[in-house]
């Protein structure tokens, strides 16, 4: 009895301690002594086999594997990297890259040449490749290497400049690896110690804990990075990443927006990407409206257009923007498109306000017309996940469940791995689920090929109109014609309530102001946070 009361007293003391909060402030790491800069990440699918990895997980390759074309950290514009210049044929089917001379692979694997580009591409089109841009790379009919420093991609269809640049920059997945290493050591060599050409060399990983990179003293640019080592430390819990920052155990971390206010109040510094590069939409399973599609189930609840409309107008986007995103985002009028995208229609904004305005009463009416009501509630699952730079999924899922509850819909939120969700919609298994997905910007045609076209990897929404219209886009190299076709696709997607567009926003990270003075990165890189070599430390 006395022991139990003592335990109660101790417990109450602990409660009081937490209630009055801690007094952590950013750790007092001295910049002059920072030999290893540590970035805390929510984690990623850990593997060096980049052709099997989703684009957000390419964060782990940023320090050591470069791409043919670089990305300006402020504007996102293509800049020379492993290729110094490039051109295309008039029909946009042939793309020629002139490679930089004298670039050496890490660990003594020799000079970078056109053979390495061919080899790297071959990995993306392997049988086991699940690369996001795999469908694009598989349309390469032939690759030619007229000499050691020139490589030509011959595509089956025209590839317009935005899509090509997207694919060969840091936003894409063509990571340049050493053919010499592969020939000597095979995939095991790549798993153990991959050789790249980047500002850092791969130093090893402890699965589930961290990856270490060492500064490359002989980078082809001649630039010297301000610190010797870089570590990506895996900390899946958001509160843990904040605590690590405050204690000084890590110097940079990405945090969900819920913690931004607290982080700023405690003196941490926020850096954001130069560009608004991510959009978040909610995708609805079962949307395979192609005649004769074997997996299409006309009775699946989410395939009814009235249901899709109801689910869209039941959401108060302004309120969600203010609360879940703390005001740090902009409304997305349509998934995928920004004003600079091919086919952008300025009327989409006014159409959005007309078609998608918050109206829960109308949503209930639409559900009633679709056959759902108090005696027969609409039921489905909302699958949520967390990935690097994508912490808001669970908060969005929970918020949607709250809005849907108000209109009588029973939506069950479940946590899943990203890999499971991706497999589900890639294999047409996503019938009764919806999932919020934060996706990095890409050219509109690339996005449609990926998400709205049956021959792409990902099956979000497909129908006969999209198949036919996008088929024409693929064959066209006339800018005006393409613009018209792409606009028609956008009009169609918006009118059909193909998915639930929500917001565009920038990528943001927090840093210890006593260590990190400046950090500039564009945002559209596959792993979002990039350009670690440009980080300036406090002097």
């Amino acid at each position, binding site marked *: *009895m006395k022991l*139990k009361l003592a*335990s*109660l007293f101790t*417990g109450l003391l602990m*409660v009081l301690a*937490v*209630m009055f*909060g*801690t007094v952590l402030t950013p750790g007092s790491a001295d910049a002059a002594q920072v030999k290893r800069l540590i970035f805390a990440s929510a984690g990623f699918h850990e593997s060096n086999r980049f052709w099997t990895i989703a684009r957000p997980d390419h964060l782990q390759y940023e320090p050591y594997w470069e791409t043919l074309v670089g990305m300006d950290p402020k504007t996102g514009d293509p800049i020379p990297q492993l290729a110094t210049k490039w051109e295309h044929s008039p029909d946009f089917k042939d793309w020629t890259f002139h490679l930089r001379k004298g670039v050496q692979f890490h660990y003594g694997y020799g000079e970078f040449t056109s053979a390495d580009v061919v080899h790297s591409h071959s990995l993306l089109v392997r049988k086991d490749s699940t690369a996001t841009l795999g469908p694009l790379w598989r349309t390469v009919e032939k690759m030619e290497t007229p000499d050691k420093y020139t490589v030509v991609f011959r595509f089956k269809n025209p590839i317009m400049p935005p899509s090509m640049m997207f694919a060969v920059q840091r936003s894409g997945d063509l990571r340049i690896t050493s053919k010499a290493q592969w020939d000597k050591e095979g995939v095991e060599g790549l798993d153990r110690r991959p050789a790249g050409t980047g500002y850092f060399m791969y130093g090893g990983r402890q699965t589930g804990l961290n990856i270490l990179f060492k500064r490359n003293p002989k980078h082809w640019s001649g630039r010297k990075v301000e610190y010797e080592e870089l570590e990506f430390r895996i900390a899946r*819990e*958001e*509160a843990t990443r*904040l605590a690590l920052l405050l204690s000084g155990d890590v110097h940079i971390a990405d945090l*969900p927006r*819920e*913690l931004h*206010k*607290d982080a700023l109040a405690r003196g941490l510094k926020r850096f954001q990407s130069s560009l608004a590069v991510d959009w978040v939409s909610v995708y609805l399973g079962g949307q395979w409206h192609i005649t004769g599609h074997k997996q299409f189930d006309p009775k699946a609840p989410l395939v009814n257009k009235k249901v899709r409309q109801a689910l869209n107008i039941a959401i*108060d986007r302004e*309120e*969600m923007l*203010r*609360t*879940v995103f703390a005001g740090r985002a902009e409304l997305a009028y349509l998934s995928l498109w920004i004003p600079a995208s091919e086919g952008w229609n300025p009327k989409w904004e006014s159409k959005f306000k007309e078609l998608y305005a918050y109206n829960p009463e109308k949503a209930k009416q639409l559900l009633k017309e679709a056959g759902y009501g108090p005696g027969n509630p609409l039921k489905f699952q909302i699958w949520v996940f967390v990935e690097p730079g994508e912490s808001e999924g669970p*908060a969005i899922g*929970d*918020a949607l*469940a*709250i809005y849907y*509850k*108000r209109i009588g819909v029973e939506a*069950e*939120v*479940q*946590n899943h791995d990203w890999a499971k969700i991706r497999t589900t919609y890639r294999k047409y298994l996503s019938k009764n689920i919806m999932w919020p997905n934060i996706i990095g910007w890409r050219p509109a045609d690339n996005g449609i090929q990926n998400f709205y076209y049956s021959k792409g990897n990902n099956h979000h929404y497909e129908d006969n109109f999209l198949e036919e219209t996008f088929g024409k886009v693929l064959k066209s190299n006339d800018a005006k014609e393409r613009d018209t076709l792409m606009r028609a696709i956008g009009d169609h997607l918006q009118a059909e309530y193909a998915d639930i567009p929500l917001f565009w926003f920038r990528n943001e990270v927090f840093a210890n102001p006593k260590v990190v003075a400046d950090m500039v990165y564009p945002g559209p890189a596959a792993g979002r946070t990039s350009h670690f070599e440009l980080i300036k430390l406090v002097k």
Partner: protein
Amino acid sequence: MPQLTSTRTLPWYAIPWVVDGWRQVKRYPLFSLAILIFVLVIPAMFAPWVAPHDPYLGFLSNRLTPPVWQDGGTMEHILGTDKLGRDILSRIIYGARVSLTVSLIAIFVGGIIGTVLGLISGYFGGKTDAVIMRLVDISLSLPTILLALVLVAAVGPSFGVVITVLIVLLWARYARLTRGETLAIKELDFIARGRVAGASHTRIMFKYIFPNVFNSLVVLATLQVGYVILLESTLSFLGAGLPRAEPAWGVMVADGRELIVTAWWVSMFPGLAIMLTVLALNLIGDWLRDHLDPKLRNL
């Protein structure tokens, strides 16, 4: 002859009827009972009438409202709101219902299974006893969390999964206790007389032995309610228990863990509810054990 002192001259704590009353009160664990009734039983039974709001419904504009006694707090949400604007007090009240339901079902079903198997094992002995006891050993050595995670990965989180995991873990204790008691009781004379009188094995086990084991089972069950509530909360906290939207105390603690510094109330109040309930149940269990069957002091 000594003169009796008038009650009017005694201090209040020495007045005879006060002393007698206090002696009666001390016989029962009133403090623990009071906590239990107000934190668990009344909320669980009368949740729809007691809770001020719907526990599943929230308004994002009200998210993270602090408790009423803090700046920004409101009488509308006495204990504040969570990150989806749901009233914390209402969710704690409904959470009592969830916790009590899950634990009572798990203990009841696990108890029945364990008691029956324990009676059979202790009564028949031999190979039957050996087999059942090996199953008990296996059950007791199963890693709780791992089992729950595997089930959730296979079929998704649900009431069924949580109750199944708890039953798998609980029955063995009842089996072992019942077996031990049965081994002792079956050697007594009245059992032998029953056999001579022609009573069947089933009759002997359930009419003669079981009533003598019942007290011990009641004590064990009472002590286990707190343990089961804690276990269910742990599983829900880890995401291997009840679905996210359910107002389960463990789920509520998990929801607020990344906000522990900025919005401490989200995790703190459900955590307090767990602590008070488990403590009260343990104190009552101790009292019951002391009064019903002191032999069980090692439980």
